[in-house]
């Protein structure tokens, strides 16, 4: 990890020149008075935050954590990190009401929910998705009744993987970090990733792994997030030490392993840094293969025009748009890239009853853009963004790797299977 340009978030507040570019770009401030904007809540409020002092914050919890402010700041101020830390202080000081904290912890424990719910998938899906239980969940817990909860999969991804025959003669080994959503909700994304990696001569290794902890980080539950990250590092570091890349399909999980967890939790030991330095977004990894001339391009054409929305957490890797570049290699496929700031969901943000309307308003420019482009489905790398996009547009959403797997000739699943029948 390069550290010479690394400064703790708080040190960067003096770099702020108050130009307000962040406020002009902030998708939440654009639609709600409850969040006055990154400049006010970040570097300006930071002047009033001191260790051991009561938190002066009221509005910081309305930051959705999209990190658009960081991306546009011309002065290198780490606004999003300041906000995340300030929220953690509010949580620590008991400034978040107990009921909401219980709700936040429930939403942020995607792994726990998956472990409990997935084995009972058909039943749990009925229980979670009927109007009465959603109404109850809103009244008692504050989980917005309209917000797009996912469906549990009938089979866990790793159950499928154990059954999946390993290819012979792999040229290199790759660790796959599948994340909770692939494991419990959308195993089709993991299957597509395994096909694509194996097609390119990789042996896929799936060591035991936890939730990356990002939902906890973005709800200010730092202690719990630390425990998750420590366990993940323990499971992954042996591979990192051998230089085996750790590749993920969830752009927020990989960002957490690379940067969010170490930075927000001040974890800088050698193991944490080794794991960070060896973690890759899947398309970042595929693009590196392509640059080496090692990516197979035996694609069959996909004659579609589809909207692609790069999630905020993907842009925050500061890699450009690797998935768009890889999809650009598929003949016939026309990708129309969204420049919308955010879909609104912000991980768990849009599930909260007090933030649901804001999240939908934030997503509106994206939903309008998707409607204007048309097309049978939408492409997006992040799971909660996909669910929000489907909720906001009525169109199914797929991960870019699903298109790639289809172009390589693997059987499509879900929404893509229906579309592939038209080929």
């Amino acid at each position, binding site marked *: 990890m*390069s550290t010479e340009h690394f400064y703790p978030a708080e040190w960067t507040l003096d770099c702020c020149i108050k130009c307000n*570019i962040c406020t002009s770009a902030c998708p939440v401030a*654009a639609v709600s008075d409850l969040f006055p904007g990154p400049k006010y809540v970040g570097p300006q409020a930071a002047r009033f935050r001191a260790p051991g002092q009561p938190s002066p914050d009221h509005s910081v919890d309305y930051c959705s954590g999209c990190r658009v402010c960081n*991306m546009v700041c011309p002065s290198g101020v780490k606004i999003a990190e300041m906000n995340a830390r300030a929220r953690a202080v509010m949580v620590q000081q008991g400034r978040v009401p107990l009921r909401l904290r219980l709700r936040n912890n429930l939403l942020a424990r995607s792994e726990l929910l998956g472990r409990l719910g997935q084995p009972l998938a058909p039943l749990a899906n009925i229980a979670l998705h009927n109007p009465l239980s959603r109404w109850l969940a809103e009244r008692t817990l504050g989980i917005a009744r309209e917000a797009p909860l996912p469906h549990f999969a009938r089979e866990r991804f790793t159950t499928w993987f154990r059954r999946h025959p390993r290819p012979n003669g792999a040229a290199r080994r790759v660790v796959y970090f599948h994340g909770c959503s692939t494991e419990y909700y959308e195993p089709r994304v993991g299957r597509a990733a395994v096909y694509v990696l194996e097609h390119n001569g990789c042996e896929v290794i799936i060591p035991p792994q936890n939730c990356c902890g990002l939902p906890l980080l973005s709800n200010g539950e730092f202690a719990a997030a630390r425990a998750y990250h420590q366990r993940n590092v323990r499971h992954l570091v042996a591979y990192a030490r051998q230089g085996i890349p750790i590749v993920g399909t969830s752009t927020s999980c990989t960002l957490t392993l690379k*940067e969010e967890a170490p930075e927000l939790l001040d974890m800088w030991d050698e193991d944490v840094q080794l794991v960070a330095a060896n973690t890759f977004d899947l398309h970042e990894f595929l693009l590196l293969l392509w640059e080496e001339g090692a990516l197979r391009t035996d694609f069959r054409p996909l004659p579609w025009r589809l909207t692609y929305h790069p999630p905020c957490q993907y842009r925050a*890797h*500061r890699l*450009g748009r690797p998935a768009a570049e890889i999809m650009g290699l598929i003949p016939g496929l026309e990708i129309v890239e969204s420049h919308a700031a955010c879909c609104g969901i912000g991980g768990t943000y849009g599930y909260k009853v007090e933030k649901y309307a804001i999240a939908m308003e934030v997503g509106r420019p994206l939903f309008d853009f998707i409607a204007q482009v048309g097309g049978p489905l939408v492409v997006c790398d992040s799971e909660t963004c996909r669910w929000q996009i489907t909720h906001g547009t009525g169109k199914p959403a797929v991960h870019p790797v699903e298109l790639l797997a289809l172009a390589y000739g693997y059987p499509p699943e879900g929404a893509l299977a229906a579309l592939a029948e038209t080929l």
Partner: protein
Amino acid sequence: MEAATLDVVVIGAGLAGLMAGWQAAVRGCRVRVVAKGWGATHWHAGCIDVLGYYPADSQTPVAAPREALAQLVRATPRHPYALIGTAALAQALDAFQQLCAAAGYPMHGSLERNWLLPTALGGVRPTCLAPETMIAGDLRRREPMLLVGFRPYLDFYPALAADNLKAQGFPARDVTLDLPRPEQRRLVNATNLAQLFERADFRAEVVDALKPHLGDAARVGFPAVLGMHNALGVQRDLQERLGRPVFEIPVLPPSVPGMRLHRILTGAIERAGGRVFEGMEVVAADVRDKVVEAVWTEAAARRKYHRARHFVLATGGILGSGILAEDTDTLREVIFNLPLAAVPQRSDWFDAEFLSLRGHPIYRAGIAVNERLQPLDAAQEVLYTNLHVAGTTLAHCDALLERSLEGVALSTGFAAAQQCEAKNT
């Protein structure tokens, strides 16, 4: 590796960088623009100043830039305009005007005459190209104007502007309106006002509130927040409803007219197949002999590599943080550590007066280049043959004082792109 080699990497996404990226992409180059964040476009007035004062410390605005430019080029052969030539400047302005017109946002004006437009403080500002939304404010005409502000919007005080204009003999009055009820937000900034102005119902309510105050006003000035995507439509609708010309006055950053130009330029780059990435700060470069091979940008967990045949350095000067004052008395170009020219003695960096008409000597410091915009060392030798420098990073020009900032940016960005060739051409 060959597949990953770009034709051009542009460092910086101000007007110079975006112009270079657009022109290179139009010439068939594979272009990537990388920038630390958004910057100059969001800070400037959304007009193109080419030459406002000449000599720079003159107190009389330049009336006809073309004549003054000819004098400047003869008198200061190291000035960026002199290096690239006024023909390149004229070509750059022409290309830019065509682009903006095609985007439905015409920039009016020419090198034959400067506009004189009112500032938010009621000053008089010479500028060469101005968007259609601003030109009815021209102070070469004397029709009385009414300046409109909004009570919850703190970045424009119409009374201040009107009083200063009156003191200089320009007939002006002011009025401050409350926002229509449902739009009364606690926090009103330029971008959310611009969104509101795109709505016909909001405009109708503003006009209703404004009509009783019109009096003898022959034109009406608003802060520059009249819509983000459809500024011309917003302006025309207001003009129809008010029955007189309407104009915008640029206000404090973030600048809505600047954002419109940012949107037009980045859109043009992408349509031409290029890419623009913000949040990518260049932190290192690989150089060999006299060639820049690649640059590295800061990214999560490790750096990202960008290999290209040509590089355009458009990081801005001291204001854009392309040049930093490291300790108390040394200046440093931040990426290639290029030598800086025209650096005065430390004691002479600043004039004694903050708002000095002579300017501050330190702002003339920058990178010395040849006619191909390649950086030079003290012995006038080219340092890197495939590196071209554009914008306010260049030495021998006080763009703030002579009011040439956007003209220098656009024309040197244009000229830098002319130095870049696509691999297959």
